[in-house]
């Protein structure tokens, strides 16, 4: 009993922290089902007073007339090819760094880590000028390549650690069979790398999905190409305190995909974060 009492502050502290981290999301979630009048006159915690007024109307409105359905499509269209390319190019380079004879390989690795730490702003102006000159600004090809280039250091860093940790015997057997390097990579290394590839892909997908700055700079705010983050931020700047009912629903649409991925694949997401931390 005494022991329980002594542990009460511990549980209380954790409970308070968890509340601070969940209540804001809960408030927004509840509000996204309330009509405009209710949101602007009473707090979300009073939603229980008029349950029959809750509806999906806000979601239908933002998806249809505010073009968020289209923006969702654009986000997928940006993230999926960019991440696929990142994983492919990254795994080949990581394999070279971890398993092939590479003069100056250590130096390359240090450079990759240094590039991980450089603020992305440092690279934006020259790439934008290059894009303006080549007509890649505002195109999906342009943004796929930008994300590929910017995301490579992380993919290479994480996958190199993984390939380097694979047991030597795995590769000795392949070498004895006289398998080519390409064959060893495709038939020996890749099949056992599922979890590592998955954590790179998930982490990068969430990163690309959540990006606002790169999309604003290289795609612009045009509704024809804008991903969900740009669409929501346009909606915020357009609303001057009014239109909360649309913002709440829009924010939820924007976070639905990364949230589902997070809760379904939490293990891989955590592994990606740990790798990024240099563990």
């Amino acid at each position: 009993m005494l022991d329980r009492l002594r542990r009460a502050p511990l549980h209380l502290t954790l409970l308070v922290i968890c509340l601070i981290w969940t209540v804001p999301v809960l408030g927004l979630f509840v509000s996204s089902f309330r009509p405009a009048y209710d949101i602007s006159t009473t707090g979300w915690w009073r939603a229980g007073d008029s349950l029959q007024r809750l509806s999906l109307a806000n979601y239908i409105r933002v998806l249809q007339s505010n073009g968020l359905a289209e923006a969702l499509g654009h986000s997928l269209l940006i993230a999926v090819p960019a991440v696929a390319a990142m994983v492919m190019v990254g795994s080949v380079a990581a394999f070279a760094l971890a398993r092939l004879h590479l003069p100056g390989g250590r130096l390359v690795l240090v450079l990759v880590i240094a590039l991980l730490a450089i603020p992305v702003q440092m690279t934006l102006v020259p790439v934008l000028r290059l894009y303006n000159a080549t007509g890649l600004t505002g195109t999906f090809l342009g943004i796929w390549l930008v994300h590929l280039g910017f995301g490579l250091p992380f993919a290479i860093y994480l996958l190199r650690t993984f390939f380097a940790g694979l047991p030597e015997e795995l590769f000795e057997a392949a070498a004895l069979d006289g398998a080519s390097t390409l064959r060893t990579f495709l038939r020996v290394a890749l099949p056992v790398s599922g979890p590592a590839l998955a954590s790179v892909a998930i982490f990068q997908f969430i990163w690309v999905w959540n990006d606002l700055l790169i999309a604003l700079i290289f795609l612009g705010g045009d509704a024809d190409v804008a991903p969900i983050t740009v669409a929501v931020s346009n909606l915020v700047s357009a609303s001057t305190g009014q239109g909360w009912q649309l913002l709440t629903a829009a924010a939820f649409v924007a976070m639905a995909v990364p949230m589902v991925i997070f809760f379904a694949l939490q293990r891989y997401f955590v592994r990606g974060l740990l790798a990024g931390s240099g563990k």
Partner: protein
Amino acid sequence: MRIIAAVAFVAGVGAGLLGWLWLAERITGRLPLRWRRRLLGPLWLAPAAVMMGIYLLWPLVNTVVLSLRDRTSTSWRGLENYAFLARDEQVHAALANNLFWLVLLTGGCLAVGLLVATLADRVRYEALAKAAVVAPTAIPFVAGAVIWRFMYQYQPPGLPQIGTLNAAWTSTTGQDPLAFLVDERTNNAALIGVGIWMTTGFATIILSAALKSVPAELREAAIVDGANSRQTFRYVILPQLRPAIIVTATLLAISAFKAFDIVYVMTNGNFATDVLANLMYRQLFLNQDYGRASAIAVLLAVAAIPVLIVNARNARRREV
């Protein structure tokens, strides 16, 4: 049409890579073994190296060059853009705000992350508690900004408060509501609070993993020696966590310099909340001044250097 382009892009990258590697194999296959081993590695690295060269290395050098040229990059201007940074009040204010972000975001995330990691370690609902804190790291900053604009929502006194914080504040203290995002005494802290809310999960994951790897014998030995739980934490566990704390602090500090989305969406830099990244964005698009935008980027990178040096020193110490 776009979906076809997307499929073509992925297939193109995949086929291009395979073709390149196959070609590398064929070419080096005819060479003596010693040469084959020497060439194959660089050839495998080449595709990624080219991409990183175009999108990271070359721009890095080029940004420094552009920062020495005029707004349209047509003629040399020496250090004029830097002189502008040195005297412009907006830049000073933004730099001060970035430093505030650096201290508060890093400190806040580390403190809460450490607290959650250690406390959750002692309860049965550990996974649940950590998931609650980690989940916001997966959502877009834009969505987080909307969530917190709603939390900070202000209505003039007399009207019902619909923002959670002001409702709690006015009903418990009976005082006037606070305009969190407009009042210059609170607004920067309010923005950084959103950053802490969205980034603490990251610190929690790393510190929690480090905590689990502290050998159980160490803790047991401390308890046998008569240390209470606070002493055990202070003198046994905390020193073991040191490397993880430094790595986390470095990454948090770097992300504090990159702060953009939250400010852009919540205040757009108004009411003295500007940070360097937003200033750079405006120089780039509203002012169309590539020289000044590049100079700000260089300033951002230079500001991150001390953080990197501290970290590199620590890494070397760990290796020795």
